[in-house]
């Protein structure tokens, strides 16, 4: 079992014909993902690897190839347009890998999507993978994942790979791993992802990987306290050693006030009953022990 993606996912790749799009489409196909179409304006009629048809418009990809999910690899200036095009064409799951979208553009996009029945993952995220379903909608290295019953939700990319790597080495498989993205404004936050994991019978526990900046971890803690998520939660918050006022890579990773501190987030999550992972080097071990 899984959340967000599964064997019925019919994936469209927006920006398939670009460098990154081609590389990861090959990887996703190799993993078993059902990539049914690509979309690049002006490249309609091409085929990727002689099998995936490319269309000029998302609407066409939905109509002709039956795409029901989309992954976006287009540059930041065009990415909001790509998200809106997918939403307008009726795509229900949109995963936006693109990094560097202006925050004010995302304010508008999120406001627009609020009235629509659409889940946006990202932007600036590694995507979603469900190893048991052999469905990878993202850019994560495939081979570190193994099917299992622990969900992962994370603001980070490579740190998620590290977490998954440690879980797999510790013999803990994953139901679904979701990178929600490192920007201050993203589509689905921890709360939405935890709600999905709560309802997923294939998920027994969740590893949450937060970081400094924003209030997403506090919102997750509030959601747990309100009874929205009742399964075991293991939490790691990166950035305890980060200085205040400096952007640590991610646009969202900056300490601008007390709430943004790793210590505040850890306190909130602990208070909500989460098991705190003491060090990034002990993710696998902590979860394995916690799962008994």
């Amino acid at each position, binding site marked *: 079992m899984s959340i967000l993606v599964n064997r019925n996912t019919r994936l469209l790749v927006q920006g398939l014909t670009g460098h990154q799009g081609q590389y990861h489409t090959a990887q996703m196909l190799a993993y078993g993902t059902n990539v049914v179409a690509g979309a690049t304006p002006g490249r309609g009629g091409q085929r990727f690897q002689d099998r995936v048809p490319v269309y000029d418009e998302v609407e066409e990809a939905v109509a002709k190839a039956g795409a029901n999910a989309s992954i976006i690899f287009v540059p930041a200036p065009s990415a909001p347009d790509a998200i809106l095009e997918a939403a307008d064409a009726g795509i229900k799951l949109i995963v936006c890998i693109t990094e560097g979208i202006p*925050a004010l553009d995302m304010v508008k996009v999120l406001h627009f999507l609020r009235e629509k029945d659409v889940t946006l993952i990202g932007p600036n995220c590694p995507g979603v993978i469900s190893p048991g379903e052999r469905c990878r909608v993202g850019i994560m290295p495939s081979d570190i994942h193994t099917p299992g019953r622990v969900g992962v939700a994370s603001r980070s990319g*490579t740190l998620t790979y590290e977490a998954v790597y440690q879980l797999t080495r510790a013999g803990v498989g994953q139901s679904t791993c979701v990178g929600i993205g490192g920007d201050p404004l993203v589509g689905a936050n921890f709360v939405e992802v935890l709600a999905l994991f709560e309802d997923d019978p294939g998920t027994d526990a969740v590893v949450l990987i937060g970081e400094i900046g924003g209030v997403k971890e506090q919102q997750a803690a509030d959601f747990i306290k309100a009874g929205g998520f009742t399964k075991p939660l293991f939490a790691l918050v990166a950035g*305890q050693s980060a200085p205040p006022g400096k952007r640590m890579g991610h646009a969202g990773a900056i300490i601008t006030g007390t709430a943004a501190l790793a210590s505040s987030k850890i306190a909130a999550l602990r208070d909500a009953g989460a098991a705190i992972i003491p060090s990034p080097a002990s993710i696998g071990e902590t979860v394995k022990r916690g799962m008994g």
Partner: protein
Amino acid sequence: MKLHEYQSKALLSMYGMLVPRGGLAATPQEARQVAERLAGPCVVKAQVYAGGRARAGGIRMAGAPQEAEQHATALLGSRLVTSQTGPEGVPVHRVLVEEALEVERELYLGIVIDGGAESVVVMASRAGGTDIEAVAREHPELILRQVVDPVVGFQAFQGRRLAIDMGLPASLARSLAAQMVALYEVFIAKDCSLAEINPLVITRDGRIVALDAKLNVDDDALFRHEDLAALRDWSQFDPLEARAGQAGIAYVKLDGDVGCLMNGAGMAMATMDAIQASGLSPANFLDVGGAADPNRVATAMGILLEDPAVKRVLVNVFGGIARCDDIARGILQAFQPGQRAIPMVVRLLGANLQEGLALFRASGLNVTFAASLLDAIQALRELSNAQ
């Protein structure tokens, strides 16, 4: 990206906010000339990318043009050390000379993009002129907020509400609201990530003036603001941070002696946390990015090596898009002949791992390999004990 006070004020003025009369000076003579033109008491303000200037002596009152010149002489060419800078301070290349105003009240006005509200939020406080973060900590009720609807934008009534809730007379609410609307318009037009007017003052004669101004522009939006991007003042950065920034590498200089090179922001922070938890101290944050190409890695490694505080190096790269042999090539490229020898712990994972490790082995450098983050930290500690 930060803008200097004088740059911020020029933008505010274009959008209809009142700022003090004044002028920029790069020499003491120019400062004197501006002061003469102002014909009255004035303020000489160091233009640096840091707050806390007043307490650090970066803002000085001058009764006469000659005094303004003296202050400018003292400030220009010096390095200003404030509570927000490191001990090395930031260089003062320009001063802003402005008329001194008779201030009745000091307010705080700020605009941010709030991740929780997923919208722009306008903040105001009657506790202006002070450290607003301390106010937020100790008296959060003094900071008032209005969430902006992205369809209609910030509305004048929201500004009036903030004004009235700050306890200002309703007679001032209208003009204060107009100033807030103007600031909001700058914020949107220039893709800001932060706008702060602290203090926004009400003068004895009833004018509302931005006494200080701080605009930060969203780095991610600079592609559509070439004019603003060109304003970045690299002199205000640590030299290594400046080099990294110009190369598009996320690098933050820290106090420790373990240089570290990572890919991915979360991974970089986690690695720093692990180093610190082990009792060692990271010398920097450094994220070479997901698709690290050899040249960028080489630049990043060069920056690490140039930091004299760095005594050992940890490379912790989890290949997603990046290939391990590319990472290895980049790192080794930085060790040109003459480069100082430095012990390294290398933990690589991902595609072409064996090729990458082989390149390190063939290099003859002092490299310890680690299979996991735990091993890597352990190896670092051993190195440290041995050194």
